[in-house]
């Protein structure tokens, strides 16, 4: 039984502060969607609204054909995995896992059997009798995962589940979470501030800022084709260059920067180019050349990246970062041009 989760124009307030602004979000049946953003962007608020620990000031939340908006939290039937594990300290590992089944009136023998089977799936059969305090962080989070999964919830939610684990364990655990989520086909909402984690685990990622979703897309699209300058910056497009079209010649468009540098761009490569736009590029999307058509810059600090040299460049309208080939060593202070690499750049609407 897989169902979809729909948030429709949801707003939330803490006192007089609005923390979510008309947020709409749809997680398809069986899909894992991450909410990604820095602290205070509203991602945890969104999760707590769905869990029922907060009430929205407007809008509705639906899970399948059930309206969750005003339903008490304990009737929502959602599996939750917390950052700090939140295991019951006074119960054994098995009783922790069986807790949700007990609330559902499942008999002792059956719930122990189900808890044991779930512990087996997360590789903790040998630890069933232990108390949570005797487990490592990774083991605790496995128990928390088993506890959330054993009630076979139509929706699983994760609140920064890997933040307290060390780097190696984080990678193992996210594979584990993905494996179990896929195997059960459970619709999932995953909250994190870690871009790599969100991109590696999710079907789709919602990048959030100031209580709004800036873009909701597959990791591939977000990484290669950000829709706006916020998302572009977030995924590493360090160079955002404001440009204005001066001439259109069929597919070819000529545009100038504020400083007057002129570039010719092809709409076959970039798609339709509006009259005013932002050219976004990561450092490897701006090639450093000694001469030619490009943005004239003065080279600054040079760093060695192994596959290329990276140059901090200054222009009259701001700093840019570009990469140059290993075959060509340029010195700080020299004049050069930055040439956009078509496949590595994208065109964004101008900032409001």
């Amino acid at each position, binding site marked *: 039984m897989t169902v979809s989760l729909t948030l429709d124009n949801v707003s939330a307030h803490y006192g007089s502060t609005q923390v979510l602004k008309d947020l709409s979000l749809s997680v398809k049946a069986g899909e894992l969607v991450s909410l990604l953003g820095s602290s205070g962007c509203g991602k945890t608020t969104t999760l707590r609204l769905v*869990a*029922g*620990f907060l009430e929205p000031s407007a809008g509705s939340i639906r899970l399948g054909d059930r309206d969750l908006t005003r339903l*008490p*939290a*304990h*009737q*929502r*039937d*959602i*599996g*939750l995995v*917390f950052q*700090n594990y*939140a*295991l*019951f*300290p*006074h119960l054994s590992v098995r009783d922790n896992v069986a*807790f*949700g089944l007990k*609330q*559902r009136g499942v008999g002792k023998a059956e719930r122990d059997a189900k808890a044991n089977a779930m512990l087996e799936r997360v590789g903790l059969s040998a630890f069933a009798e232990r108390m949570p305090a005797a487990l490592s962080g990774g083991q605790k989070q496995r128990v*928390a995962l088993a*506890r*959330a999964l054993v*009630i076979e919830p139509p929706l699983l939610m994760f609140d920064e589940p890997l933040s307290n684990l060390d780097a190696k364990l984080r990678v193992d655990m996210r594979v584990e979470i993905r494996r179990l989520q896929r195997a059960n086909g459970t619709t999932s909402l995953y909250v994190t501030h870690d871009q790599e984690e969100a991109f590696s685990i999710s079907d789709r990622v919602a990048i959030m800022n100031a209580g709004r979703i800036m873009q909701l897309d597959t990791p591939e699209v977000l990484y290669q084709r950000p829709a706006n300058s916020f998302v572009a910056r977030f995924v590493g497009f360090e160079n955002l260059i404001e440009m204005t079209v001066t001439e259109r010649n069929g597919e070819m468009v000529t545009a100038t920067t504020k400083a007057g540098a002129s570039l010719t761009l092809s709409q076959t490569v970039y798609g339709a180019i509006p009259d005013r736009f932002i050219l976004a590029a990561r450092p490897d999307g701006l090639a450093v050349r000694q001469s030619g058509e490009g943005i004239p810059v003065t080279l600054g600090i040079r760093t060695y990246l192994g596959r290329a040299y990276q140059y901090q460049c200054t222009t009259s309208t701001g700093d840019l970062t570009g990469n140059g080939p290993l075959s060509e060593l340029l010195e700080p202070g020299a004049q050069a041009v930055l040439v956009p690499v078509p496949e590595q750049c994208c065109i964004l609407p101008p900032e409001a």
Partner: protein
Amino acid sequence: MTTKLHPLLIVFAAVIFAILVAPLFIILGAAVSDTSFLTFPPQGFTMRWFTNIFDITAFRTTAITSLQVAVTGTFLALLIGIPAAYAMNRFRIRLPSWLSNVFVLPILVPEIVLGFSLVKSITIGLELPVFATLLIGHTLLVLPYAVRVVGASLASFDFSIEEAAISLGCPPLKTFFTVVLPNIGAGVVAAFILAFITSINDVSTSLFLTGPGVSTLPIQIIAHMEQFFDPTIASVSVLLMILTVGVMAIVEATLGLTFLTK
């Protein structure tokens, strides 16, 4: 390897220990003295002052009153204090910061003042029976312990555990009893003991609240001492000490006493 202690430190510790324990031994000696007045060192040995306690009805009835008031008052204080402490920790951000201080007022205000104001407001104002007045007074007196000690336990309680239980289908009230309470149990027991001992020992507040026919054991001890000044007082004190040590021994055996010093 053991840390080397300075000889003076050992002497200092021994003196402090002696000062703490000596009065208790003096009472023990005085309680078995075969004289009709309180004296130390004891002259002769007798247990008659212990049997004398049970011959005096007033000691028996006031002991019963003391226990009734202490147990009921402590339970009432916990009944009010635990939810109060819970609410103040759970909703800390939404509540004014001075609120928790209100619950400490009965300790901060001189007990004499508390006693007098209770006489004024309850005994005279509401015309309640003496026992009820005593019970209300003691509940108020020990409420700070309930709120503070349980509150300290709750301060280190991770409320996401509660949310985990609710998300697993446990209704909020049931969650409190099945998840929150078991994890603050040591704090509740500590609060109970502190409150109980405070109540059973109280003189100043009780002095105002006891009345015709109803008195507590400490008040009776004072009354008896004013009239007789015999070793019965010492033997009652010894029995109270044994009771306290007994309570502590049970606690130590079941929960450990460390939570009292933490």
